[in-house]
C-alpha cells in the first residue's frame, strides 16, 4: 500500500516536470482560450457612474479606482454628477436608460427614488450595480458597506467604553432621508436593545454637517458632562462632534465612534490626534476594486441583466490608535488618482 502511494507520487512528480518542461521544449506558446472573449466583451463598452455627488472622498475614490481598472481595457467610463440633487439624479438615470450603457453604477440617495428606474434599466438589458447605498430594488450586484453592521460595531465599542461609567451616550445621526443613516440607526438600536443599562440622552440628526454636529454635541455635553460615549454616523460630519468634545476638555473621556471611507486626512489622522477613538472604514480602494471586478465579471459572463443577483458587503477596517499609523489602514486620494 505504502509502496503504491510512493509510486503514485513519483509518477505525479514526473508528470508535473513534464508539464513544465513540455512548452519549453516545444518553444511555443499556448493560447489561453478565455482572455480574448473577455477583452472583446469589455472593449468599447460604456460604464455610467451616478454617485450622489462628486467632490468627496468616497465618490472620488470609487471613480478613480474604477477608472484605473477599466479604462486600460477600452471601457468608456462616464460620469453623471447630480450634486446632491435627487431629482437631477433621477433624470440622469432616466436619460441613461435610453442611452443604453452596458453597466450603470448607481449610488442611491435614498431607498425609493431610483428603485423603479433601476428595474427598468435591467429590463432593458443594462447591468445595474448599486454601491454603498442600495435601493428597494435588488439589482445584479450590490457592492458596499453593511450599515447595520457599522451601527452595531460602533455602538458595541461605545457600550464597552462606557462600562463602569455613567452609561449615558449620545447619537449624532446623518440626514433623516438617507438610507445609510436609517440603517445605521437600526444597528445602534439592535445593540441598545441588548443593553438596557445604556441611556441615550440625545439622538439628533446633524444633516451630515460638521457645524451642526458640533453645536448639538456642545449642548449635549454641557447638559451631560459625564457622557461616556458618542456614536457618530460619518467621519466627515463627526469632525464637528470631535471638536466639541475637545473643546469641553473631554478628549479621551468621551469615546467617539464613527465611520467613513478611510481617507487618510479624514480618518487615520483624526484617530491619531485623538479626535476619534474608533473609525470603522469601508476602505474605498477595496470597494472600487470590487466594483471593477464585478463589472468585468458581469460583462464577460454574458448573463442576462437581472437574471443573477448578488451582494458584496465590504469587510470593515476598524481604525484605532493601534493601526492609525500603519501604511495600509488608510488611503490617499492623490495616490489613487495617479
Amino acid at each position, binding site marked *: 500500500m505504502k509502496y503504491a502511494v510512493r509510486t503514485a507520487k513519483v509518477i505525479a512528480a514526473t508528470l508535473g516536470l513534464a508539464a513544465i518542461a513540455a512548452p519549453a521544449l516545444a518553444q511555443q506558446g499556448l493560447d489561453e482560450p478565455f482572455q480574448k472573449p473577455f477583452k472583446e466583451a469589455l472593449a468599447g463598452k460604456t460604464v455610467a457612474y451616478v454617485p450622489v455627488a462628486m467632490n468627496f472622498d468616497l465618490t*472620488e475614490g470609487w471613480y478613480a479606482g474604477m477608472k484605473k481598472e477599466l479604462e486600460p481595457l477600452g471601457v468608456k467610463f462616464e460620469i453623471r454628477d447630480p*450634486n446632491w440633487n435627487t431629482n437631477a439624479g433621477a433624470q440622469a438615470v432616466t436619460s441613461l436608460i435610453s442611452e443604453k450603457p452596458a453597466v450603470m453604477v448607481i449610488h442611491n440617495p435614498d431607498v425609493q427614488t431610483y428603485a423603479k428606474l433601476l428595474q427598468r434599466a435591467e429590463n432593458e438589458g443594462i447591468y445595474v450595480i448599486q454601491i454603498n447605498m442600495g435601493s428597494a430594488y435588488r439589482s445584479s450586484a450590490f457592492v458596499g458597506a453593511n450599515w447595520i453592521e457599522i451601527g452595531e460595531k460602533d455602538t458595541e465599542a461605545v457600550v464597552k467604553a462606557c462600562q463602569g461609567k455613567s452609561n449615558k451616550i449620545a447619537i449624532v445621526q446623518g440626514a433623516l432621508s438617507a438610507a445609510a443613516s436609517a440603517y445605521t440607526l437600526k444597528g445602534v438600536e439592535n445593540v441598545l436593545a441588548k443593553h438596557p443599562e445604556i441611556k441615550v440622552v440625545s439622538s439628533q440628526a446633524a444633516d451630515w454637517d460638521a457645524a451642526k454636529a458640533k*453645536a448639538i454635541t*456642545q*449642548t449635549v455635553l454641557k*447638559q451631560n458632562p459625564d457622557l461616556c460615549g458618542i456614536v457618530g454616523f460619518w467621519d466627515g460630519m463627526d*469632525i464637528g462632534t470631535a471638536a466639541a468634545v475637545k*473643546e469641553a476638555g473631554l478628549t479621551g473621556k468621551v469615546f467617539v465612534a464613527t465611520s467613513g471611507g478611510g481617507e487618510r486626512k479624514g480618518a487615520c489622522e483624526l484617530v491619531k490626534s485623538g479626535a476619534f477613538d474608533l473609525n470603522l472604514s469601508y476602505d474605498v480602494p477595496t470597494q472600487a476594486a470590487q466594483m471593477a471586478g464585478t463589472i468585468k465579471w458581469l460583462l464577460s459572463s454574458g448573463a442576462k441583466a437581472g437574471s443573477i443577483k448578488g451582494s458584496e458587503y465590504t469587510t470593515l477596517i476598524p481604525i484605532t490608535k493601534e493601526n492609525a499609523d500603519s501604511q495600509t489602514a488608510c488611503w490617499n486620494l492623490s495616490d489613487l488618482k495617479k
Partner: protein
Amino acid sequence: MKRLRFNQQEIVFAVFAVLFLAFSIFLRGFLTPENMLTLLQNVAVLGILGLAMALVVIGRGIDISLIAALAVPPGLVLQMVQNGHSLPASLLTAVLLTIAFGLVNGWLIAYAEVPSLFATLATGLLLAGLGQAALFQLDVVQWSDGMKGFERLGQGTIAGIPTSIVMFAIACVVVAFLLRQTRWGAYIYAIGDNPYAARVTGIPSRPIIVLQYVVAALIGCFAGLVMAASVNSMPTRVFNSTLIYDVILVVVLGGIGLSGGRGGVLNVIIGTLLIGTMLNGMTIMDISYAGQNLVKGVVLLLAVITDSFLNPRNEETAQQGDI
C-alpha cells in the same frame, strides 16, 4: 384713547424674554453659565453672517451669495495651505478673492441695476461652482499642519469666554461703528430709506452700494474663517444647506425691515439670541429634526408677516425685484 403700538424689535424681545424665562423655569440645565456660553457660541457664526446681511438689507438689498463668501474663500485658505502655500499668502489670496466677489456683486446691482435678489443668487452659484470645479479637491477641506495656531480663531476661550463669541462681539462693534459713526453708514440708511431721494441729494449711491456688498462679502469670509477654525475643516457643501434662510431669519426676526432703511446691530443681536435660545432649548429637549424645522418655519413665517404689517412697502419707491 391712545393705541398701544409695539415695534417689531420690542415684540421679538418680548418673545425672547418669555421663551427664555419658560426654558429657565421648565428646562433643567438651561439656565447655567456654561449653557449660556454654549448657546451664544452655537449661534456666533450665524450672528456674524446676520451682521453682513443686515448691512445689505438696511441698504434695501439682499445678499443670497453670503454663504458662498462664507464657504469658498476660507475653503481656499485651507486648500492652499494643504497644498503647501504659506498661511499669510493664502489668507491674502482669499481676501482678494472676496473683495473681487463683492465688487462683482456691487457692480451688477449698482451699475447694471440687476435686482439684488437675482444678482446675488447667480453670483453665489457662480462662486460656489468655481470652488467646486476648480479650487477644492474635496467637498470638506481638512485642516493641515500649516494652519497650526489659526484654530484659535474659533476654538478655546479668551478670558473665559469662547473665542467665537468674542469674534461675534468684535464684528458687532465694527459694524455698529460703520453704521452709526461714519458718513458711509448714514448714506446706507438714506439709500435704504429712499434710493431716489438719496441720489437727488447728492449721495454717491452707486459706489456706496458697491462698498456695501464688498464689506458684506468680507464679513461673510470672516464668519467662514471662524467657522472653519471651530470645526477644524471647511465643509464647503454648506452652500447647499439652508443656512441662508437662518441668516434671513435672524435679520427679519430681529426687526430689520426687508424694505430697507431701518434697524441696526442691536436687532441682529436680538434676532440671534432668539434663534440661539430656540435651537438650544430644542436640542436639550431632544426634539426631532423635522420638529425643529417646523418650529423654525412657523417662527419665520410669523416674523415675515409681522414685518409686512409693521414695515409696509413704500409704493412710491418699491420696484420689481424688491422683497
